[in-house]
């Protein structure tokens, strides 16, 4: 495929009407998930969390604490599922891998000069290789938004292909940074671009740009993976990241998955929630359901 064909393809995708997409997302968000459905949704959401710390101040100690939380979110209740993965910077991968050994929890690493991606391709690839070499099972790369917005789809495509190659067996999540793409048309095009370049997952945001994940953006991305599978047979995962803070938020995303891409995506294998603070709220709501009493933050660990 030539760059011209790629551009023709992306611009030939059906448009997204902003008002209609937001209305649809809002309507799905008004679903009422109660009792047994809520309990099921909370456990599912916990199992989909990519527990994340991406701070300049991250230390080995911080990462170890996070990993302990990932394996046993609620130490007082062994029935709580573990999270899907821990997400850290490349230099913390080794610590995380060691801490999570034997838990079955994945280690995801952001790479490619996260979050801006403003580095030479060689640096991005080196970043990726280092994370993989340190044991990361998943790589969360950022696309070159500047290239995308200037219409240089070829560059974006080739970089994804190169990073995918550098990933080896590690799963590649491609972060679109939808807050910088701004329009839903761009989100749809970037989703298809990433999928066609080989992404295993498409992810909304770095968490460093506002707005991060939103329901309508995720809706558009879920439509993209649904349509991509219908067209190619290959299934691609979706990961909203950033801004998901409450159980209510998390459940809205699950409803969105359920009624847009469908139940096939309702597993940690195909859907992740990039978040950190949401975990404690999920635990708190979970305890409310089992005890019938509202709990408080003192009863859950801050890591």
């Amino acid at each position, binding site marked *: 495929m030539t760059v011209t064909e790629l551009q023709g393809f992306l611009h030939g995708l059906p*448009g997204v009407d902003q*008002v*209609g997409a937001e209305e649809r997302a809002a309507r799905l968000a008004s679903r009422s998930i109660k009792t*047994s*459905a*809520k309990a099921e949704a909370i456990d*599912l959401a916990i199992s989909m969390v990519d527990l994340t710390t991406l701070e300049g101040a991250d230390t080995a100690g911080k990462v170890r604490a996070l990993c302990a939380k990932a394996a046993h979110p609620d130490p007082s209740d062994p029935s709580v599922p573990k999270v899907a993965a821990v997400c850290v910077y490349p230099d913390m991968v080794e610590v995380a891998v060691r801490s999570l050994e034997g838990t079955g929890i994945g280690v995801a690493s952001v790479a490619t000069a996260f979050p801006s991606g403003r580095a030479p391709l060689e640096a991005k690839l080196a970043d990726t290789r280092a994370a993989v070499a340190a044991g990361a099972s998943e790589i969360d790369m950022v696309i070159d938004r500047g290239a995308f917005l200037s219409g240089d789809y070829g560059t974006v495509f080739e970089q994804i292909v190169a990073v995918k190659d550098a990933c080896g067996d590690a799963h590649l999540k491609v972060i679109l940074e939808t807050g910088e793409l701004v329009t839903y048309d761009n989100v749809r095009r970037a989703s298809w671009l990433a999928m066609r370049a080989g992404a295993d997952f498409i992810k909304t945001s770095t968490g460093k740009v506002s707005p991060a994940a939103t329901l309508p953006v995720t809706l558009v991305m879920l439509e993209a993976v649904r349509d991509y599978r219908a067209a190619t047979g290959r299934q691609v995962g979706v990961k909203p990241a950033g801004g998901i803070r409450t159980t209510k938020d998390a459940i809205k995303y*699950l409803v969105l998955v359920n009624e847009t891409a469908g139940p096939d995506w309702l597993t940690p294998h195909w859907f992740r929630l990039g978040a950190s603070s949401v975990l404690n709220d999920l635990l708190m709501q979970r305890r409310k359901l089992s005890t019938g009493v509202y709990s408080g933050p003192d009863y859950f660990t801050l890591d």
Partner: protein
Amino acid sequence: MVFEYAPAPESRSVVDIRGSYGLFIDGEFVDGHGEPFKTINPADEAVLADVACADEADVDRAVKAARIAFERVWGPMPGAERAKYLYRIARIIQERSRELAVLESIDNGKPIRESRDVDVPLVAAWFFYYAGWADKLGHAGFGPDPKPVGVAGQVIPWNFPLLMLAWKIAPALACGNTVVLKPAETTPLTALLFADICRQADLPPGVVNIITGAGDTGRALVAHPGIDKVAFTGSTDIGRQIARTLAGTGKKLTLELGGKAANIVYADAALDQAVEGIVNGIFFNQGHVCCAGSRLLVQESVAEEVLERLKARMATLRVGDPLDKNTDIGAINSAAQLDKIRELSAASEQEGAGRWSPPCQLPDRGFWFAPTVFTGVAQSHRIAREEIFGPVLSVLTFRTPEEAVTKANNTPYGLSAGIWTEKGSQILWTAQRLRAGVVWANTFNKFDPASPFGGYKESGFGREGGRHGLEAYLNV
């Protein structure tokens, strides 16, 4: 995994349905002199209440009460004071919104999500909007000091019982008229609750009179010589009868009647939103919508793809208990309506159209009809011409914009239409050519008190909503 939503029923405890209801005349609930009738919950066929039936003498009393209130109180009252009554009513509707929504869903069968998020908020908005006109009528473009018509006789349907009441009563009262309103016999309860709201608002007696009953009551009302203006929303056949009844009387008449709206999807449409629009167009309120997009006209080059997406989307529709907060499609309003939908659907199958419904479990009791799509429908099929007023979509195709417009307009109706395309000039080109009173482009089934609504051709005449909606209630 399969994500089952547990039942999430809205509590019924907020409503208090009495065993029997009288007529609301001159500020009091009084007995009717016709044979009382029962109103039932269409979702389970349980009897909700006995409702009084107004005979001719009752109609006469109501009209007289309205006349006296018009001449002595409401007509002479300054617009600014009328406005405050209407604002007060709007506020009480907001305060009692949950009660109104639950009662509407119980009596009508519509999903609570719609009565809660669409009907009742619009009802409050309608009173709020027209309240503001009451003291500004001289600025509405109908002369410096336009006068009310007098007593309005209003007959409304069962599909949006409270909303249609608001569409009728709010502008009438704002303009200084008094009203006698007859709700549909299958859905009288929210109108009677509205009567209680009028009392809470201290609305002077006789300004709003609610009389219940069936066709005979309605006929007596529109034929009553003391009525100055008739407003009707309902079927085209009844609209014709009313027009004949009023022939030669010189009385004002507005009619909002049936429709067979075309929803045109061009190949370049934003397909996901178009599919939502198709679904919203025909399955909103079980398709009991005069402006429902019951004829999907899809450009042949994308017909297959649209249909595939539509079917997948239809499979996610949740049919069932109207009070469940996750229900998308509730109960058909009555056994009679269900029969009509079944009859026309069966006829369509016989005419050779392909019938499809998603797998869905319908409750045993009550009146239910699965969301249905008919493909391969031709313009000559009955289902493409007759209003079905149910959750049944006909799919037709077209090749060129000219053909789309020709097919869309090829109906005696002209209430509404939809257009889906990302090309702005094509929207305007199409909208200009569609002979319909409301055109939704890249959206569907949107309503607002500031937006005039009403039909061309046999869909009736006159407009409700906006500045235009005042004209029916002013002596201009």
